[in-house]
């Protein structure tokens, strides 16, 4: 019985191919748009969450304060108000998991005939832990390297490509500002940061080496930033308060005076970026859903015309024994079949479009099973919802009048 009805629905669709195609088109565009928009939106969310994972979790960054030189204030991080002792003191705070003081700058590096300008970070071994940054080759430097200020370097992928090419960099000597450094390890690739910088275009050296050999001239022991990792998400506010009061006390700041340092919650910044992309992808999905709705109304429209056109047929079917529910089922199935076939074509176009976007713009796209299931269930729901009214209208026809209908 059901398969016979399904056959009838298929038959009826084939009877007026152009009209069936145009009805389906609304569904095709709707589902295609939803799948494509969700793929792009989820792709953006995926990129952001990748960047957040690459950054490390529950992080604060403490920047040294601005300095005023001849009335002109330079940006934060230039004055030498933070030092290694501050970093050591922060380690003692409640809820702090890791602390990494940093000093950094740009320098020209040379290997053989090649040279490259890159950013140099001087820090302690704790830095790799708080940033959850692994090595793909070689070893990290240790606390003894910090104490004796050895000239060793960890090197990023972009730097390797530019000065080493295919040569294995481990154990090779590079020159940074004329000082020879031995490459100890290769940093895992982290890709772009949230603000679009290439995080692999970098070299990490021991903090003391950087302070003495590369970026001298600053107050001895001073650092530009301290990265602080909290134990957990819950400890973030406690650690933030602790940082502020500890550093103000250590720097002998009076009540009400402006701090000579800045504490930034990196995780909060990242979360707000993630929130923004999530909102954006929901918005895209919502706009695309409107076209699904329009497609559904198109189906209802055509089904109503179809019921009127086939009034006589409905009368004949009733006269030879069709019950109300048989007629209802027949027209409902027709609407559902149109919806689902349209949905399949739309799915195909949406996935194709997403792949095209990926190839043409290099933007990440994610086609999740979730969005496919969603599109499918919405299509079936639209079919039932917008097919029901016309189908009920057909089922409620008076057989005598329907038979007389010309």
């Amino acid at each position, binding site marked *: *019985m059901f*398969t*016979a*009805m399904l056959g*009838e629905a298929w*038959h*009826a669709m084939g*009877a007026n191919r152009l009209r069936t195609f145009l009805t389906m088109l609304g569904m095709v565009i709707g589902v295609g748009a939803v799948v494509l928009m969700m793929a792009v939106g989820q792709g953006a969310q995926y990129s952001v969450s990748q960047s957040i994972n690459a950054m490390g979790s529950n992080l604060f960054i403490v920047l040294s304060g601005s300095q005023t030189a001849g009335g002109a204030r330079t940006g934060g991080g230039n004055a030498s108000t933070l030092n290694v002792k501050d970093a050591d003191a922060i380690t003692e705070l409640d809820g702090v998991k890791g602390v990494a003081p940093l000093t950094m700058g740009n320098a020209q590096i040379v290997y053989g005939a090649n040279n490259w300008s890159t950013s140099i970070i001087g820090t302690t071994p704790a830095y790799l832990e708080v940033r959850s940054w692994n090595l793909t080759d070689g070893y990290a430097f240790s606390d003894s390297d910090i104490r004796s200020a050895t000239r060793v370097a960890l090197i990023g992928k972009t730097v390797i490509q530019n000065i080493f090419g295919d040569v294995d960099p481990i154990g090779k000597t590079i020159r940074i500002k004329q000082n020879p450094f031995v490459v100890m390890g290769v940093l895992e690739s982290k890709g772009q940061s949230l603000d679009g910088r290439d995080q692999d275009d970098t070299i990490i050296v021991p903090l003391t080496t950087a302070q003495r050999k590369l970026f001298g001239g600053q107050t001895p022991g001073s650092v530009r930033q301290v990265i602080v990792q909290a134990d957990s998400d819950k400890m973030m506010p406690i650690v933030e308060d602790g940082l502020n009061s500890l550093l103000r006390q250590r720097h002998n700041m009076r009540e009400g005076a402006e701090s000579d340092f800045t504490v930034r919650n990196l995780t909060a910044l990242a979360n707000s970026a993630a929130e923004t992309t999530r909102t954006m992808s929901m918005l895209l999905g919502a706009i695309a859903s409107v076209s699904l709705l329009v497609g559904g109304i198109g189906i209802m429209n055509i089904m109503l015309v179809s019921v009127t056109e086939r009034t*006589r*047929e409905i*009368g*004949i*079917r*009733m*006269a*030879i*024994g*069709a*019950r*109300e*529910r*048989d007629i209802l089922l027949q027209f409902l199935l027709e609407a559902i079949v149109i919806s689902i076939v349209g949905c399949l074509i739309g799915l195909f176009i949406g996935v194709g479009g997403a792949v095209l976007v990926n190839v043409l713009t290099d933007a990440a796209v994610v086609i999740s099973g979730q969005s496919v299931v969603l599109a499918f269930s919405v299509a079936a729901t639209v079919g039932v919802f917008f097919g029901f009214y016309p189908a009920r209208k057909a089922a409620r026809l008076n*057989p*005598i009048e329907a*038979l007389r209908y010309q």
Partner: protein
Amino acid sequence: MAKNVIFIKDLYKHYETAAGPFPVLKQVNLSIDSGDFVAIMGPSGSGKSTFMNILGCLDKPSNGEYTLDGHKVSQLDDAALAKVRNQTIGFVFQGFNLLARSSLLDNVALPLVYAGLDRAERHARAKILLEKVGLGKYLNSRPNQISGGQQQRVAIARALVNQPRLILADEPTGNLDSITSEEIMGLFEELNQDGITIVLVTHEPDIAEHARRQVRFLDGRIVEDSLSQNRKMIEETV
């Protein structure tokens, strides 16, 4: 098995109009025996079409009693009425009323869809009936590819496919020429000889002569109920 296929007592039917109820059938009494062949005659507006709709369970009487094959029709719900139309009655219409988009085989098999038979069974039975009405060669043709007389044969095959006890034919020859009409009436006579009760509406006396019994309507009442001339002769001879 009930001797009466149809038993009608004090049947009234009126339509609601703006000017109040308009009576169409007034106190109709009729009993049709199993195996009978009845022609219903009368001018336009005499109520014969409404009467046929009530007989076919497509319409309900305003008042009175209609018993079909032992069941009181007024006590049946819509689904049960649909089942009666599917299994007890076969309809033949003036305009053939075939589905233009479907093959002859599918047209004939359609009532079996609503009877819940599977596809192979449906097609097997439809094929037998199309062969019986002489259209075995056109199983996959469309209704618009064959003549009017052939279309009416298809319609008769469709009416027969569920082995009904009763065939209701509403001016089945109204759209056909006289030679084809004779052929169709010959087919009805054969069916009647097989034991199927036939009720047919017509306003052509020649056609009505094929029936055994003629019932004449006028202004919503039965004014005449008699045997056909040639049947009288046959039965008198016997």
